[in-house]
């Protein structure tokens, strides 16, 4: 073999060997990461958005097929977000655009595909709420809005989605007739208060409730069905006896029965007939609290568990958290202690124990907290206190099945955060008028200090709705 001038055959062979060795090492490294490694971020084309960063090590949560393109990704989006991408929760559902008459419009902005507006791994163009579409996207279809709504004449193309104006998806608190219906409401409603939780009252309606095994009756320690050796901790037994579980007939084995680790329980050397597990998991909770656990898995607290990953840790959060809580992990028991599951503590202490942002830190100086203290100390009516959960895990009426609905604590605390006017219907309007609520959520400083003071600005939506209705009435009356 003849080498280049100045090179010997030996040095060329060595170079080939080095290349071959480097290639093999490289291939082995990437193959190991791909098939065995937990952290696959080396393959990532760009950082994930705040909405998905927890799933960085689980590429196949979204990329369910390595060779799938748009349809695969769309299916992944819908598998987690699809239930609220329908009417009435979404004013721009996919079905609205699927008619062939929209072909030209879709060629400019394909609103049937989530990634048209929400591309992942594109940190450099990602705006608030994970939007990667330029801010003029409303204009594509609504450029002539001023003809229908003269009040909108001259408004900037980038102002449509301002807080209190319009939401592309959940616009349920901002549509014209809703504004009209809530004109002239006071800042604080006369009958301010949250609806009562009613899980215990609707047990009869729950088809999944194991009523034959655990009849609804109050239990005491003598009724406990845990193996004898598991009943030695007096504190645990006393906590269970004082809990709502014992009050409603939920015995030890209702939770401590292995579901996901059946084979391990089968191998129990003690040979207990009950497949006892010391550490019940979310699946156990879900056997009665399915709606709550499902919602938990859709929010940032539980999305890792829902994806089959280890629980989210406080230290991995992108929001400001207390350093001394960094090691804590998020499961059902993180907020609801195993036996002493105090919903009062879960509604405030559990939150402020981890979250350290200004809004959370300011909470204990707020009127909301004063009301919470009053209620929990017995000086306020039930439902009049305002905890963290009152707004971030609101009590909403939810369909249990085709025939029943009940008040559910929405355990997806991410659901109403952005845009923040999604919080209006489920939370703010329980106590405040619509106008006051919209104004308060427009005021960033007021949000930071946890609503200490009054809104410093006024949204024009309600006055515009009033003007529209008044002019319509005049037209009807021939004036």
């Amino acid at each position, binding site marked *: 073999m003849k080498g280049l001038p100045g090179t010997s055959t030996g040095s060329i062979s060595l170079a080939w060997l080095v290349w071959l060795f480097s290639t093999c090492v490289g291939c082995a490294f990437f193959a190991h990461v791909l098939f065995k490694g937990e952290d696959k971020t080396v393959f990532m084309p760009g950082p994930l958005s705040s909405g998905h960063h927890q799933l960085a090590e689980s590429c196949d949560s979204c990329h369910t097929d390595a060779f799938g393109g748009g349809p695969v990704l769309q299916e992944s989006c819908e598998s987690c977000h699809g239930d609220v991408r329908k009417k009435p929760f979404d004013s721009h559902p996919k079905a609205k655009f699927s008619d*062939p008459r929209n072909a030209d419009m879709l060629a400019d902005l394909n609103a049937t595909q989530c990634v048209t507006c929400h591309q992942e791994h594109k940190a450099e163009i990602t705006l608030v709420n994970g939007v990667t579409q330029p801010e003029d996207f409303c204009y594509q279809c609504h450029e002539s809005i001023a003809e229908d709504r003269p009040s909108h004449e001259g408004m900037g193309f980038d102002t449509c989605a301002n807080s209190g104006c319009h939401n592309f998806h959940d616009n349920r608190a901002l549509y014209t007739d*809703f504004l009209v219906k809530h004109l002239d409401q006071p800042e604080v409603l006369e009958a301010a208060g949250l609806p009562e939780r009613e899980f215990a009252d609707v047990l009869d309606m729950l088809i999944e409730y194991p009523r034959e095994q655990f009849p609804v009756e109050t239990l005491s320690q003598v009724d406990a069905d845990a193996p004898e050796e598991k009943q030695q901790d007096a504190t645990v037994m006393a906590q269970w006896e004082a809990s709502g579980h014992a009050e409603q007939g939920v015995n030890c084995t209702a939770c401590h029965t292995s579901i996901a680790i059946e084979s391990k329980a089968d191998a129990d050397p003690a040979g207990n007939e009950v497949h006892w597990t010391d550490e019940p998991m979310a699946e156990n909770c879900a056997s009665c609290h399915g709606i709550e656990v499902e919602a938990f898995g859709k929010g940032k607290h539980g999305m890792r568990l829902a994806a089959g990953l280890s629980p989210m840790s406080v230290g991995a959060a992108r929001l400001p958290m207390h350093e001394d809580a960094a090691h804590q992990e998020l499961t059902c028991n993180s907020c609801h202690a195993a036996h002493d599951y105090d919903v009062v503590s879960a509604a405030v202490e559990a939150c402020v124990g981890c979250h350290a942002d200004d809004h959370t830190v300011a909470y204990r100086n707020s009127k909301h907290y004063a009301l919470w203290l009053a209620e929990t100390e017995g000086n306020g009516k039930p439902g009049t206190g305002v905890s963290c959960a009152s707004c971030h895990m609101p009590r909403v009426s939810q369909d249990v099945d085709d025939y029943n609905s009940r008040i559910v604590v929405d355990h997806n605390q991410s659901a109403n955060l952005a845009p923040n006017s999604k919080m209006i219907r489920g939370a703010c309007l329980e106590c405040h008028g619509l106008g006051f609520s919209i104004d308060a959520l427009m005021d960033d400083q007021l949000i930071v200090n946890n609503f200490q003071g009054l809104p410093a600005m006024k949204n024009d939506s309600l006055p515009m709705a009033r003007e529209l209705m008044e002019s319509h009435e005049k037209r009807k009356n021939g004036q």
Partner: protein
Amino acid sequence: MKTRSKILFASTIGSAMTLGVAAAIANDAADTPSITPKTMADALHMVMDSDRAVYTRRIVNRLAAKEKVITASEHFEDEKALVLPAQMFRFGAEMVTERAAENPDVNFSYSLQSLWPINSQNAPKTDAEKEGLQFVVDNKGENYYTTEELGGQNYFTAIYADTAVSPVCASCHNDHVDSPRTDFKIGDVMGGVVIRIPIES
């Protein structure tokens, strides 16, 4: 083989062949194109129109206008009210679109549009829609048929007059804040049902 067995054997074979031929003929009949896009569109429209007329007259008119036991509202969930007939129609159209996407062999779409739409997104967009909606207004009792190409796909497009079959159709549109026309009366053509069936060329 005895004679009786031979007869039995021959009968069995004969019966099997007869059944086979009958089945083949039935299959052929099911698979043989014998319906034109126009006939299919007319049939679809007959079902749609009848269903909506039944819902309007026997549900909405009876319970909301006559008996007054419930209202019908555009915001039916917030108002705990009946779905408006036009919404009922649109929800069906959206469901058909979703289901047809999963079953391309049974592919068609339909929509309700108007030259005077409450929601401007339901105004005619394509040339066929503009011409067809005007045609059914100008030629009462006649339908409009054409072909068009949208997004690279050819369609047979049929447009049928949508008439105010009850006083509430007219009054609701006349009273709506976003209605561009306020003088509808019963019997007026208020818009049109547009049915599209994909065709090859």
